[in-house]
């Protein structure tokens, strides 16, 4: 399994890099995703590719895996120019990939998913033996006959890694590998990665998590706006200096300006969940168990957790897209609302921002003014006698665009033509301009550039300061620690006790996210964060 025997170790010094990419340009129409990028990856190193969303990491990665062909530039393998016309060509050269959004077929078994990428002429038994051997070597155990839909995120990633290692790759590309893992699972992953490095393989580690990069990687290439803006040894850098390179100076200033100006004044309780339980709505979903919480006016209540632990289900129960069995399970400003639909809850003064911008918070094919109608027609008098008041809708959209600095092309473009950050500003702004008494936001800044994220967080803080109760569901601990007054963790459909931000730590929350109840009992003051 090891390639150390046949390949020169990094120390033994083949001066040419294992893989090189030189002058890579990728254009999509007028948009330049990669602008003259140079990158060299050596055997036996874990090379970090750092950058924010939209910096061009994904495009570069797809080019290296043969999914995209560059507009200009060359890729070399040990100094020889190679053409990566397809993932198959890339795999033949020894390039393997572990996808962030797993490329697994849910209704196929683990074995079938692995067999998909193996060449012809490998029998089932032989494949099973090789998988078992790999499992022993790296501690990656798989149940081959289970359908993928029944597996956790960590198990799914194991399939991806095994599938990649079965091809004995010289270069492994990992795209945000820890984004869906618990801290414990991430530790296991790091052990595997270090072992692969020691075997003389090269790893390209794509992330925006600075701590991981500093722990694992000896070299880092930093991308911003499609260009290489720096290269360094992350072990000698601080998280702050890496972040500065990643986001650029101007944005950092804005981030600082948006730092928490929280008002801990305790207003009346405006949102309350009382022993909310809901069965899982589908095969792949999570049920909710006995969730209770209360959010006061002026408070931002954060719910941390790893995706897939019931966040979407909790959001649906709060918004009314899923109804609770009893009215009393959800109370909005004192009114039992558990069985009301989403518009009835909006009329009670609640507003909602779902996680997915495209297709949930907004219909990408409709114009911005029509998307203003989408969530506001019930509360913003945008209709008369069943007719849509188009002028009023355009005026509302214009107010949102103005207030949140939404950048767009054309007078009333389709929502789908906006960039992620701008569309997120639009959908958040659309709800905030309603001056809701209760605002529920799921992943407010997921996949959004730093400037837009700062603006959105500031808007949430300002809304709370005006007396609204805000519930933020987020996977981003930095975000929760920046804006939330108290934090609870959603894990496997149950909610932990909420603790004031000042009395907890990232480590404690991270352990809870992984299902470890670690906080010493003495540290939780009953009712301090008004959790029940």
């Amino acid at each position, binding site marked *: 399994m090891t390639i150390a025997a046949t390949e020169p170790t990094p120390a033994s010094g083949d001066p040419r890099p294992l893989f090189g990419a030189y002058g890579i340009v990728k254009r999509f129409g007028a948009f330049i995703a990669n602008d003259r990028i140079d990158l060299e990856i050596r055997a036996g190193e874990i090379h970090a590719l750092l950058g924010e969303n939209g910096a061009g990491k994904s495009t570069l990665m797809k080019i290296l895996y*043969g*999914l*995209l062909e560059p507009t200009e530039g060359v890729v070399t393998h040990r100094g020889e120019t190679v053409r990566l016309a*397809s*993932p*198959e060509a*890339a*795999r033949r050269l020894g390039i393997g990939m572990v*996808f962030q959004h*797993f*490329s*697994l*077929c*849910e*209704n*196929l078994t683990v074995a*079938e*998913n692995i*067999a*998909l*990428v193996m060449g*012809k002429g490998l029998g089932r038994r032989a494949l099973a033996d090789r998988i078992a051997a790999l499992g022993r070597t790296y501690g990656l155990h798989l149940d081959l006959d289970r359908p993928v*839909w029944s597996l956790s995120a960590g198990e799914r990633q194991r399939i991806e890694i095994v599938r990649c290692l079965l091809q004995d790759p010289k270069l492994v590309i990992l795209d945000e590998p820890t984004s869906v893992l618990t801290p414990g699972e991430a530790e296991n992953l790091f052990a595997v990665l270090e072992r692969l490095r020691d075997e003389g393989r090269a790893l390209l580690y794509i992330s925006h998590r600075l701590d991981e990069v500093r722990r694992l990687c000896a070299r880092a290439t930093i991308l911003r706006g499609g260009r290489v803006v720096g290269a360094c040894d992350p072990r000698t850098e601080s998280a702050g200096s890496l972040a500065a390179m990643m986001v650029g100076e101007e944005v950092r200033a804005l981030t600082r300006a948006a730092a928490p100006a929280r008002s801990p004044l305790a207003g009346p309780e405006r949102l309350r969940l009382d022993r909310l339980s809901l069965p899982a709505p589908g*095969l792949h979903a999570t049920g909710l168990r006995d969730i209770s919480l209360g959010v006061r006016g002026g408070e931002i209540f954060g719910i941390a957790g790893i995706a897939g632990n019931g966040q979407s289900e909790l959001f649906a129960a709060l918004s009314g897209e899923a109804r609770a069995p009893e009215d009393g399970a959800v109370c909005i400003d004192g009114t039992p609302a558990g069985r009301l639909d989403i518009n009835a809850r909006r009329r009670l003064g609640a507003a909602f921002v779902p996680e997915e911008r495209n297709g949930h918070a907004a219909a990408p094919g409709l114009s911005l003014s029509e998307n203003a109608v989408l969530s506001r027609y019930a509360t913003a008098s945008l209709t008369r006698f069943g007719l849509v008041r188009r002028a009023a809708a355009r005026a509302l959209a214009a107010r949102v665009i103005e207030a949140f600095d939404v950048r767009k092309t054309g007078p009333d473009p389709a929502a789908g033509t906006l960039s992620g950050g701008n569309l997120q500003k639009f959908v958040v702004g659309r709800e905030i301009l309603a001056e809701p008494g209760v605002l529920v936001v799921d992943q407010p800044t997921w996949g959004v550039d730093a400037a837009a994220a700062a603006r959105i967080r500031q808007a949430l803080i300002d809304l709370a300061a005006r007396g609204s109760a805000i519930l933020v569901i987020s996977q981003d601990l930095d975000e929760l620690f920046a804006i939330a007054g108290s934090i609870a963790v959603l894990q496997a459909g149950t909610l932990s006790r909420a603790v004031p931000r000042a009395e907890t730590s990232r480590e404690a929350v991270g352990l809870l996210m992984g299902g470890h109840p670690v906080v010493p009992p003495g540290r939780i003051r009953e009712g301090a964060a008004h959790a029940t």
Partner: protein
Amino acid sequence: MTLDMVQMILVTVLTAATPLIIAAIGELVVERAGVLNLGVEGMMICGAAVGFAAAIETGSTLLGALAGAGAGLGLAALFGLLTVGLAANQVASGLALTILGLGLSGLVGAPYVGLKRDPAPHLEIPVLSDLPGIGRLLFGQDAFVYAGLALTCAVSWFLWRTRGGLILRAIGDDHTATHALGLPVRQLRFLAVLFGGACAGLAGSYLSLAYTPFWAPAMTAGRGWIALALVVFASWRPARLVAGAILFGGATVLQLHAQAASIGLPGQALSALPYVATIVALVLLSLGRRQGGSLAPAALGRDFTPHR
């Protein structure tokens, strides 16, 4: 009822089921790849017309059958270009194919209306074909019947025992993931569509070359739609498909027999039986499906444009 009468009924049922089996097994492969082709009726009727015309012109049943399959394949290529190549709406394209096929079959078949030719020859094995009770059923059918059953076995083997079949099922389950792995999503879907078309055409040529055997406009009489229903009824599994086809074929035969025996029901009610049976089967299937996971290929009917 004597053993031979039972055999006679079973033979009729199997004959009625064969065009359904052949057309549906093709559509099953198409749907397993994630494509919904509603044009089965159009491809089938074209296969019937072209197959009959070719058989008359060449005097060969085999060439007729091949021509019929070719006609279905040609129409399917158009459908594949639209839906797989250009990501056009599958439902609308399938309906276009149905109407186009009906029109084309009328054009091709017009000079052959009223002509007759001998049905496709039946297998004759001395002794075996004359065995009482089972001889005619097992050893006395025409080549289409055996071809239909062989196709079913071959498709079953292909889907669950070969790498190509695995990739096909994977593509039907999640085209985005399989595309990311570099698997040939559109290529394989196009091939599946072509296979489905050839099967539908072959099924049509069975009608005009063996079942009736003559050409009449619109002679498929909705069998293409029944075949579509059958694929759902069989929950995308070849073995269940054969069972379903025999059930449906049985309903057709029952209707003919009941009409002959004049059991007091209006003929129209019996003619409606297969259609009502399809609806009932769909309802029953959905009732069963509610307890477990979805059996349908997850990507069925959804457009795919590679993200690049």
